[in-house]
């Protein structure tokens, strides 16, 4: 891989041991990919904290947070002192909500250790956004900007909706990018790799967040990690907003590995079908109609058996203020059933806004719990004795049964609110 003089000097350790280790990892990673060079990035989203018992024990045995960063963010078995980050860096979601230790099933010691880690992370200059949706709390890259993001649902949003450029990075590569402002120039950083591969023709109208989630789940399964181009014909009754595209991307990246898509006439690199495909011809034309929609719904609900719902989780990906506003209107004056719990996850910044707007009060008056920074899949935390879960997120319905062995129902937010308030799943395809 070709390195500039500055990169070469970083690699040699001229700018400190940590920068040297970071550049060593980027070179190994870039060569594994077959990248020709690195590219400068000034927007990095990654994970630095230590919230699992394994990492906490690792830190205590090896020398604190520098050891955690060295191993898990730089792949360096040598512990190096970590200097402040050079790139504008944001922290993604955590392994638990530190404000809710009891519900998250974490003890005082874990929280104390987390606080140490949080001070370390903030001290490096990493922004404590603590969310899977940095783009919902002010980190909105410009079209064409080179980024180094992890979190698959954020990556697909960044590439497709914002037109910024990132691959799906990992904890180690984002750690190295924070310190060096570099990432391999490969994949979605190159314009030629951003063109569509598959044409998806929508034979039915898509409206509402859960419908976009279903469609994304279907497409991910069909195209794996290729680039679908949605050609809406006449079918888009309404232009999808942030919430719909957030759910669409989150499910497409879970069922397949989609990191970029185009919607003709809507996303920035697809003002026309010709622009979306460039000189390429679609390798396949896929249709999405009533049959595909039903099959996807049934696949997502395949492991739902008992209709007695113990737990409703909302906020995957993290809810935004529009969704909290809608939830507050749906649940105001109702009560969560005694056999059921409702947990709602949102970034802490948005929770503050929800407090200010009175939504937190409404949701809590109904018996719901407002949480932040994490989710059930990340934390493996659910109410005690949970066997059956209801979700409005295809992504969470994909992961939670695998991670916790629970049954899951997927439906609309309204289906989920009804389940929370009656303790029964009555959802179904409209």
């Amino acid at each position, binding site marked *: 891989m070709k390195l500039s003089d500055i990169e070469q000097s970083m690699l040699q350790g001229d700018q400190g041991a940590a920068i040297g280790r970071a550049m060593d990892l980027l070179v190994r990673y870039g060569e594994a990919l077959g990248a020709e060079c690195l590219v400068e990035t000034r927007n990095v989203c990654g994970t630095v904290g230590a919230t699992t018992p394994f990492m906490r024990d690792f830190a205590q045995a090896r020398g604190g947070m520098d050891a955690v960063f060295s191993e898990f963010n730089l792949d360096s078995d040598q512990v190096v002192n970590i200097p402040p980050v050079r790139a504008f860096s944001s922290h993604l979601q955590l392994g638990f909500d530190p404000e809710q230790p009891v519900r998250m099933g974490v003890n005082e010691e874990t929280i104390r250790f987390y606080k140490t880690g949080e001070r370390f992370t903030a001290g490096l200059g990493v922004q404590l956004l603590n969310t899977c949706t940095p783009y919902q709390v002010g980190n909105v890259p410009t079209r064409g900007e080179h980024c180094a993001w992890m979190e698959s649902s954020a990556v697909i949003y960044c590439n497709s909706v914002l037109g910024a450029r990132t691959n799906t990075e990992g*904890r180690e590569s984002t750690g190295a990018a924070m310190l060096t402002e570099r990432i391999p120039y490969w994949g979605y950083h190159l314009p030629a790799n951003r063109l569509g591969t598959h044409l998806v023709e929508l034979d039915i109208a898509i409206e509402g967040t859960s419908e976009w989630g279903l469609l994304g789940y279907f497409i991910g399964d069909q195209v794996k990690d290729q680039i679908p181009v949605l050609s809406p014909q006449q079918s888009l009754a309404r232009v999808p907003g942030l919430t719909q595209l957030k759910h669409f991307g989150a499910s497409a990246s879970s069922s397949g590995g989609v990191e970029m898509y185009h919607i003709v006439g809507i996303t920035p690199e697809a003002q026309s079908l010709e622009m979306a495909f460039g000189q390429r011809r679609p390798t396949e034309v896929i249709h999405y109609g009533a049959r595909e929609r039903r099959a996807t719904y049934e696949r997502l609900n395949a492991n739902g058996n008992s209709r007695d719902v113990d737990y409703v989780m909302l906020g995957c990906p993290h809810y935004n203020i529009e969704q909290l506003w809608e939830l507050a209107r749906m649940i105001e004056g109702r009560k969560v059933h005694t056999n059921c719990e409702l947990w709602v996850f949102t970034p802490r910044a948005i929770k503050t806004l929800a407090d200010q707007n009175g939504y937190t009060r409404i949701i809590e008056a109904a018996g719901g719990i407002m949480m932040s920074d994490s989710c059930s899949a990340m934390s493996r935390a659910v109410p005690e004795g949970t066997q059956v879960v209801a979700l409005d997120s295809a992504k969470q319905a994909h992961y939670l*049964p695998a991670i916790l062995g629970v049954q899951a129902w997927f439906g609309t937010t309204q289906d989920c609110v009804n389940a929370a308030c009656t303790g029964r799943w009555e959802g179904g395809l409209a």
Partner: protein
Amino acid sequence: MSSLMLRGRKVVGGKSEGLALVTTAFISGWGGVDPRSGTIIETHHPLRGQSFKGRVLVFPGAKGSSGWSNTFHMCRLMGTAPAAFIFTHMTTKIALGAVVTHAPAMTDFDLDPLSLIATGDWVSVNADEGWVEVRPASATVTAN
């Protein structure tokens, strides 16, 4: 049946060998693997319930969460990592995951490893020299 040679490109250098664990399905890392045992846990996955610990993992590539590399990094630290990675579809997830697992890894083969290697075959990987030798399970039985 004699052994079979495949030639490909080094992703991570090194040499190792072991019994093959083969799937034509992509593998999820975070949420798809339990690093404590190296077991595939994804609900619909054909290898669900099987561990890749010490095996030569032959698969198309990585899918799912960006926690892929961290999951396999944890597998290395917990002693449950595969002996080697043989895959056909390059992505940042598998590249970074292989790098931090410190296991030999190869891709870009002259022949299709997914159709030519079967679970239970004995596979030797020399990523530095760019070759993989496959001794089919049936041949091993005959030789014994």
